[in-house]
């Protein structure tokens, strides 16, 4: 067996980790083993700093069919259908090459969902950039959007949602978090645990090239100032092959007795194979000479660790391999037998019959945990005095033109939102609605996080992200049944960032517990800092809301002039954390913590009233506050809204509450009755009008109005 020539600490392993590995193995490791270990023990693969913390998140729920640890979370949505969903980051690759970075991020998360046996049905993207208007930010934004469109449109999976925020802290560290949602029948659910001595591993998809070698380790080191130098490791996505891979995988899963399946992501073939074996408590023999290569001169470690895209690893009984290969060949895709299960738990790597390495799968799979040393908690900044009075109409126009509130329609327009026939409500307001198939159950889906809140309090900001995501699906009449998350933070080796990591986990746990929403999995992206500047803590929440009858979701039909406009829930009681406070130059302060009782009540009301057909449209009050939300309804529907508001204070008009909705109803009496029964505060504030304008009356103020065209001009800034 080849001996050790490399100093493993040059591969990014810490001396203590090397010692631990040697102790576990009972010997020195070879170069090949160190190379594999350095990738599998990277933060990106091993969650060294976060794994223990994540156990604080609630995971149990009656609808959870697969939770954390699986390729994606899977939830029961009734009638034998289930939904699979996961969100994952592709931040560093997108900072280096935005188009391919985003494209491969989309492809990667799609294969996670595919690995559960689900057909990928929709993408959502959570994007964060530095302030727009600088050449670099505009280049990154355009590249990332083009990458999402390039991969998603071609692979035939619609993009139905997302969020986009600008904040100076993302200038050097843009974030690209992608979420994929898939549908499956319960009996199609698959697992990645390998079993059965002699079963064969079938590598399906692209040839292996020198793509993204060390990509996982790359994502775990703080981005260098000269990131351009990291370029040769960038992977290239091929959505055309990705589409073939979906069809070939689903057909083989349907026709052959597949024992286990896993996508190839971080750590490539080694990552997938070792995870499958470690999960199943078995080992494997790998035949590297059988891996189809794009370049002949790949070294064994490169074959094992290459992050070439569009590949899946399937485990099948030997007798089923020929049929699976025939299916692949018919569909024009390569399928190679690259190894078999060993009962002894050892991973034996061979090339042309020569044994290159033999080491226990458990050693590779169990990286030593890294301790967190969080700084002690900071008191949230005091709530400053609030501005009074002012011109609400001008403030509204100014808010709508802010980069974080302006229209995203131009971006959505470059994504195919409809392919697959599952999109019942397209993106634009709160959450999109998907059906598993025409006539079948479905979901409302949203991703959310507001950097402004997290900047002042990581914990409250994380809780509020869960609340907002829950509100967004509830606005379509859905019941939130599970969430997935992606925690984007700075270096956990800094006490302040370690504190933020603890705080965002606690914040999510609190809100998830309060609202009874299980966490079905997630992803952690640390080390998002460069040049001494770390990002604002960014816990992105992907929410799944259940809709037994998505074709009757709130928002499928259109409001009609004459319908009444109601406020449901608790208006804002302060400006702290709001976009208005930033606009007004008020000293920033932590936002108010969530009002869980009020939110729970209204989350109960909307699905019931929606299912009864009492609500034509609902929209949650969030970024920018009440007037912005009313303006968004005018923009979205093309109709007008005329309201009389109870207060004229900035906090009422522009504060950002955690439990407030605007609802449009043709049957206010029925909604009022429900609200009384469920303890929801409700107030009728006006009506929908034919004339496309926002008309606002307030105590002691003259009536004012804005035409839809004026609102359109304010939000209509072209970001691309």
């Amino acid at each position: 067996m080849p001996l050790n020539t490399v100093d493993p600490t040059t591969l990014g392993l810490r001396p203590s980790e090397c010692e631990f590995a040697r102790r576990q193995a009972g010997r020195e490791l070879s170069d090949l083993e160190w190379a594999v270990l350095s990738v599998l023990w990277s933060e990106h693969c091993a969650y060294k700093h976060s794994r223990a913390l994540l156990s604080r998140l609630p995971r149990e729920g009656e609808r959870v069919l697969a939770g954390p640890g699986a390729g994606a979370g899977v939830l029961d949505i009734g009638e034998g259908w289930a939904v699979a969903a996961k969100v994952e980051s592709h931040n560093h690759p997108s900072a280096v090459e935005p188009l391919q970075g985003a494209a491969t991020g989309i492809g990667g998360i799609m294969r996670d969902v595919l690995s559960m046996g689900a057909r990928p049905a929709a993408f959502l993207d959570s994007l964060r950039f530095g302030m727009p208007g600088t050449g670099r930010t505009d280049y990154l934004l355009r590249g990332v959007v083009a990458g999402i469109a390039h991969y998603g449109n071609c692979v035939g999976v619609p993009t139905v949602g997302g969020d986009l925020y600008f904040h100076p802290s993302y200038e050097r560290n843009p974030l690209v978090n992608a979420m994929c949602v898939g549908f499956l029948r319960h009996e199609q659910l698959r697992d990645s645990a390998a079993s059965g001595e002699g079963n064969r591993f079938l590598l399906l998809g692209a040839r292996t090239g020198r793509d993204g070698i060390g990509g996982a380790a790359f994502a775990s080191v703080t981005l260098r100032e000269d990131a351009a130098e990291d370029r040769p490791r960038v992977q290239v996505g091929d959505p055309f092959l990705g589409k073939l891979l979906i069809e070939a995988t689903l057909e083989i899963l349907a026709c052959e007795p597949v024992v286990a399946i896993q996508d190839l992501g971080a750590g490539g073939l080694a990552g997938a194979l070792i995870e499958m074996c470690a999960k199943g408590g078995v080992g494997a023999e790998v035949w590297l000479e059988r891996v189809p290569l794009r370049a002949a001169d790949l070294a064994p470690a490169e074959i094992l660790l290459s992050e070439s895209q569009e590949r899946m690893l399937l485990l099948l009984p030997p007798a089923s391999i020929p049929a699976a290969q025939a299916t692949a060949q018919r569909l024009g895709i390569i399928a190679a037998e690259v190894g078999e299960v060993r009962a002894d738990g050892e991973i034996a790597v061979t090339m042309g019959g020569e044994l290159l390495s033999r080491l226990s799968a458990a050693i590779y799979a169990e990286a030593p945990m890294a301790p967190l040393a969080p700084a002690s908690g900071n008191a949230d900044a005091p709530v400053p005095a609030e501005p009074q009075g002012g011109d609400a109409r001008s403030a509204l126009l100014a808010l709508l033109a802010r980069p974080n509130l302006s229209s995203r329609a131009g971006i959505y327009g470059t994504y195919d939102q409809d392919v697959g026939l599952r999109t019942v409500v397209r993106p634009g307001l709160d959450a999109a609605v998907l059906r598993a198939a025409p006539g079948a159950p479905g979901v409302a889906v949203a991703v959310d996080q507001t950097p402004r809140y997290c900047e002042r309090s990581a914990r409250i900001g994380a809780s509020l992200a869960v609340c907002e995501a829950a509100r967004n699906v509830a606005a379509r009449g859905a019941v939130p049944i599970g969430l997935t998350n992606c925690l984007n933070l700075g270096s956990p080796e800094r006490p302040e960032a370690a504190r933020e990591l603890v705080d965002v986990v606690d914040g999510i746990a609190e809100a998830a517990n309060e609202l009874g929403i299980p966490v079905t999995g997630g992803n952690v992206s640390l080390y998002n800092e460069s040049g001494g500047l770390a990002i604002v803590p960014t816990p992105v929440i992907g929410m799944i809301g259940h809709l037994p009858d998505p074709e009757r979701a709130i928002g499928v039909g259109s409001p009609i002039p004459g319908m009444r406009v109601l406020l449901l829930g608790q208006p804002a009681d302060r400006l702290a954390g709001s976009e208005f406070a930033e606009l007004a130059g008020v000293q920033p302060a932590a936002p108010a913590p969530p009002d869980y009782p009020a939110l729970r009540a209204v989350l109960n009301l909307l699905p019931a009233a929606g299912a009864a057909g009492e609500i034509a449209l609902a929209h949650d009050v969030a970024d920018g506050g009440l007037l912005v939300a009313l303006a968004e309804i005018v923009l979205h529907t093309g109709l007008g809204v005329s309201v009389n508001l109870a207060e004229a204070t900035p906090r009422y008009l522009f504060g950002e509450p955690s439990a407030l909705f605007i609802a449009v109803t043709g049957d206010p009496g029925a909604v009022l009755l429900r609200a009384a029964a469920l303890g929801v505060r409700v107030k009728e504030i006006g009506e929908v009008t034919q004339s496309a304008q926002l008309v606002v009356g307030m105590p002691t103020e003259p009536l004012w109005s804005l035409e839809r065209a004026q609102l359109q001009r304010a939000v209509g800034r072209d970001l691309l």
Partner: protein
Amino acid sequence: MIADVVVFPGSNCDFDTLEALRLALPGATLRRQWHGELDLSRSDLCVLPGGFAYGDYLRAGALAARSPALREVRRLIERGGLVLGICNGFQVLVEAGILPGAFQTNDVQHFLCRDVHVRVASSESPFLSGLREGAVLQLPIAHQEGNYRVTPREFEELSSEGRIALQYCGADGEIVPRENPNGSYHSIAGVLGAHGRVLGLMPHPERAAWPEIGRADGLEILRGALSVVAEGGRA
């Protein structure tokens, strides 16, 4: 009646089209056929669906148009069968020379997905026989290379032969540049082959075959094949 949907590697609206045809053509035998094994000898209708056949590498539709499957499509046309090319399928028919013209990238230079209005310019086709000339349909588009080009002379010919099928327009049916989403010559959204039995169109009728969610204007086009069968089948 037998209707076939051809699947090229990279087609991604094949399942959608089948699903919509199931609704539009009750009782028809529907088949999803892989391009490499295509047999249209018993077919009444063949649909080339939307997607990115062969990744749309080189030019949209160019590689698929060289597939042996196109020989089978031409034979069906010679027999008087119906052929419908939707979006990428339209691009394939144009690249194969079955329909005239060529496609360029949208004038906005990026992919576009949204609802548009199209005006029925000719009903001299089974696919449009259920619609009157001048009718306005709301249909979704989703494409990057939808900027349809023909020469002025070809346009005159197509017009005089009643082969301009659909044109982008406003909700009121007015054909004006601002309602043209992609820069297509004279706002052309769909054209007919000789005898009206081949229709290529950029909008996706299969995505608008769903009355329960308020998108149903594509149903009539998909149902058009029924008119031929009702007349006694193909020639």
